[in-house]
């Protein structure tokens, strides 16, 4: 039976591991901090805004992870063309994550799917909640509104060929207060492809909620305190005890 996944999301700025937006970049944390045996999958995102130099260091990071971690690797950050996808795949990525690039040019999704297969394309959706409890998709590092709900965009991205949808709550990101379950449900109901929930994971109960009430196929954490071997094993033990099929 297919297991639910616990996924580590590593964000990099200019090749340096960056903690979530509520924290300053912390140079103490290196890749050796990251568990590579209990974790089910790794997502690596480059959120550098300065182009070339940062990207070169990021490429090194991707290559290192790919060569030492025998675990699935998804890579994203400014992907706007199939050429960039090829570059990331050549570095060792199994899948690419597209966000703003896909909203600006939805054909990017179908182009990637046609060239590499649907499963290679993860569409990442950043969402903010408005006062009336409606959600809106934002691009450009959460600064530009799009006028679409996450459910709408998830449905359209799926039609275009997305293999998975990664939905991230901008409000909850870094808050340690749990995933936005309503947001998650709105997306799982809108698509037939696997859904990964991100943004807000603090304790194992949050993971459990995401996988049960939220209906997600995978839970993501970008909380570095979750990155150690002991931590991930502990999370999975908790999930298994609560009836969730996980890899242990």
């Amino acid at each position, binding site marked *: 039976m297919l297991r639910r*996944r616990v996924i580590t999301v590593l964000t990099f700025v200019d090749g340096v591991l960056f903690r979530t937006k509520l924290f300053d970049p912390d140079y103490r944390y290196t890749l050796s901090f990251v568990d590579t045996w209990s974790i089910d999958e790794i997502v690596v995102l480059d959120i550098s805004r300065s182009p070339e130099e940062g990207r070169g260091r990021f490429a090194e990071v991707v290559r290192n992870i790919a060569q030492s971690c*025998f*675990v699935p690797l998804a890579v994203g950050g400014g992907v706007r063309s199939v050429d960039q996808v090829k570059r990331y795949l050549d570095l060792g990525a*199994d899948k690419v994550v597209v966000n703003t690039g896909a909203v600006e040019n939805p054909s990017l999704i179908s182009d990637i799917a046609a060239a590499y297969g649907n499963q290679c394309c993860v569409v990442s959706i950043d969402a903010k909640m408005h006062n009336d409890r409606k959600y809106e998709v934002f691009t450009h590092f959460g600064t530009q509104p799009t006028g679409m709900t996450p459910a709408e965009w998830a449905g359209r991205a799926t039609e275009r060929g997305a293999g998975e949808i990664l939905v991230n709550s901008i409000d909850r990101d870094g808050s340690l207060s749990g995933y936005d379950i309503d947001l998650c449900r709105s997306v799982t109901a809108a698509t037939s*492809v696997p859904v990964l929930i991100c943004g807000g994971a603090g304790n194992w109960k949050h993971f459990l909620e995401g996988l049960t009430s939220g209906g997600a196929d995978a839970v993501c954490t970008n909380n570095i305190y979750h990155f150690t071997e002991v931590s991930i094993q502990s999370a999975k033990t908790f999930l298994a005890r609560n009836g969730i099929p996980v890899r242990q």
Partner: protein
Amino acid sequence: MIGIVDYGLSNLTCVEAAVRRFGFETEIGSRPDMLDRADKIILPGVGAFGDAMRNLRQSGMTEALDRHVRQKRKPFLGICLGAQLICRDSDEHGHHEGLGWIDASVRRIAAEAPLRIPHVGWDDLRMQPHAKSLLFENIPADALFYFTHSHAIYPSSGEVVTAYCEYGQRFAAAVQTDGNIHATQFHPEKSQRYGLALLENFLRQS
């Protein structure tokens, strides 16, 4: 020397790293002459069936693979798309002919809601006791492997299947034929402990 076939679509980094990890020399290449030097051959793959076959044909690799694998019987391991390519045909984005080494077709995964497609993540296998494969030696029956695919291998008969995966209509997770031809739908190079053990079983066979 382990020859890893590059046909322009695949992610080779991890396969190469895994093989090197066991101390074997590798060569990655897209030209048929690479197979002359290879003792064992790995055909990895991520991508579209039709494009892959076209690339393999254009480079002369299809004939070279037939010669070295079917005639010279060098050990062969196909992974993911590489496993699908040894089938008769695929209906992914149109109808395409494969290498035809096993009597099986590649079709979109036959599974319905609430199962989601693509089939992504860690899943277990139904090993076939009557068809013991050297790939699974010393690997427990409940081992999990990583899958990521929208199309799967549906064989005409169970003869070639060494392990099934049950996700909707069951499909072949691992196949073997002629003694030297092995293929897995899952990614052993992405399946950590047991995936690496499986690769080692393939690499160390005499």
